[in-house]
């Protein structure tokens, strides 16, 4: 570890890409890393997408500006593993096996669970079927079209799991939304922070860390988040190192920092930003977790489910053929 720190300090610089400072606490994480190791972090294209990260790695390959590390959506990561260098951080064994590449090419970093955010004027929601009741008329919205937006597909899948469906067959989730539509409760408006603030989308399916009052921009007492029992559906981002990284040692030190379980390490910093760090379970057992930040997250009961690539494809194909019919 000390040899890695020395080599990284000698390189002196780290290039990161597509890390918005307000997202999952990245502003603090970058500052702390710079202060701790005296390494300058060049952050480019903070609002970029996963695909733009991959494009930058390809087009700037071999230059000193090329991104050293990526924080990337899983679908894009799986399609581009030939660009990554394998690396296993020292806390590797604490990352659940389903959330990392066995060869160390990519490893999930933080994420969240699909959740239902709702206005507190409805009282407290305790089950999905309550949403079919008359007081939710025209209130329930997804974050986009599930044949197009990943968050919306996972919203339907979460309803599917809550309705007793399996991850391999999303039909029960589509049926639930058909019932919602028949009851007049489905709201097809594109849900954004602005529509939530204006009160036009009062119940929204979205990732829990994007469904917090602080992120949505509403007062804490007016918006709650609920995850149905046995419908814990995870969606995580992944880290990967550019195999032609201009600063290979700094890149590896950055990963060590992000997966550090120290009180001021990356895992706890993500948690403080409302995201769930990938080593949360292990850190809960070894008591290294920031308990006050952890208890601020929406409560869950049940085992988290992560869609495999095949399950994701099956769901997308089913939605392409049936979604418009069910709710149109």
């Amino acid at each position, binding site marked *: 570890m000390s040899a890695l720190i020395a080599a990284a300090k000698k390189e002196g610089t780290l290039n990161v890409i597509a890390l918005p400072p307000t997202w999952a606490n990245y502003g603090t994480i970058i500052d702390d890393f710079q202060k701790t190791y005296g390494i300058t972090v060049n952050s480019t294209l903070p609002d970029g997408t996963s695909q733009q990260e991959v494009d930058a790695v390809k087009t700037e390959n071999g230059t000193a500006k090329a991104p050293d590390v990526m924080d990337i*959506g899983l*679908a894009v990561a799986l399609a581009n593993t030939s660009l990554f260098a394998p690396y296993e951080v020292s806390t590797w064994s604490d990352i659940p096996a389903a959330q990392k590449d066995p060869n160390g090419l990519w490893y999930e970093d933080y994420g969240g669970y699909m959740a239902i955010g709702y206005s507190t004027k409805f009282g407290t929601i305790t089950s999905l079927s309550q949403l079919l009741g008359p007081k939710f*008329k*025209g*209130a329930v*919205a*997804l974050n*986009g*079209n*599930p*044949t*197009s*937006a*990943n968050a*919306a*597909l996972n919203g339907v899948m979460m309803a599917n799991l809550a309705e007793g469906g399996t991850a391999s067959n999303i039909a029960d989730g589509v049926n639930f939304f058909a019932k919602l539509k028949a009851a*007049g409760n489905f*709201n*097809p*408006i*594109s849900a954004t922070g*602005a*529509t939530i603030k*204006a*009160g*036009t989308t*009062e119940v929204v399916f979205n990732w829990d860390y994007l469904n917090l009052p602080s992120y949505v921009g509403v007062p804490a007492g007016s918006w709650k988040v609920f995850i149905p029992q046995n419908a814990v559906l995870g969606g995580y981002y992944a880290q990967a190192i550019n195999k032609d990284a201009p600063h290979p040692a700094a890149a590896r030190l950055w990963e060590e920092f992000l997966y550090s379980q120290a009180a001021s390490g990356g895992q706890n910093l993500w948690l403080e930003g409302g995201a769930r760090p990938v080593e949360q379970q292990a850190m809960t057992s070894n008591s290294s977790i920031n308990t006050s930040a952890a208890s601020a997250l929406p409560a869950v009961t049940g085992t988290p489910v992560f869609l495999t690539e095949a399950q*994701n*494809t099956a*769901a*997308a*194909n089913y*939605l*392409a*053929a049936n*979604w*418009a019919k069910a*709710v*149109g």
Partner: protein
Amino acid sequence: MAVATTTQTGARPWWAGRRPPTPAWVGTVPFLAYVGVFLLWPTGIVVVDSLKNPNGAWAFSNISELGNPLVRGYFIGSFKLCVLSSVAGAVLGAILAYAVASGDPDGVGRRLYIAVSGVLAQFGGVTLAFAFLVTIGPVGLLFHASWYFDFPWGIGLIYTYFQIPLMVLVFLPAIDGLKVQWREASENLGASAWQYWRYVGGPLLMPAFLGALLLLFANALSAFATIQAWENQIAYIVPQQISTALSSEVGLSNVNVADLLALGMVILVAIVMTGYALLQRRAARWLR
């Protein structure tokens, strides 16, 4: 020194009289270049790419996609929305245009109507959808009804907001073209108001009315941002599905399908605009 050269008034410039004769078509080059780069070239790309597979090989079987019931559904959705909003917009806009035309031709009222119509005909997109959301939306200020989200009724209502002013703008010249002498002549011959409209005014205005209707239809066909902000969780119309085919995060993106859908729209617009041109030719006879 510069002063000296510019004060040689009366001297013929060196190029005077030596310019080679320019063919008349040269004047159209900027226009043709513009149309070529921004209309013909992209249309050509759409046509060619819609007949290829993602690997770039020819795939004429793509055309059969247009018979896919799902794809047909998007075109039917677009058709319904365009018919609803253009018929409603044309009828209401024509009545409004007639009211404006029967006022003082130089009056403030008329100028105000034309100016406002010019602005509102361009009002659309997210701004318009949000304006409707906060007025008649689920927690809107006035009369919310659940049918606002039953396609195509609610979104059709929103589209008429820019269709009516557009109709006023394109239909007003036709009404102005109705000569007052025609009315006097028919009254002198003993025609009632109904007979005047049935046998004189109506037939004269019909080609212009139908032409404007087709223009409104084409106008509604390509609108995308308004419906996307109003109801985006389902693709009802072709432009929404093109967006999905271009940018699906869940693995359903297919650029060639997007091109094919765009080709379908190009064909639809071509049919509509041909009809528009034919009707315009007929209508123009009476407006000289």
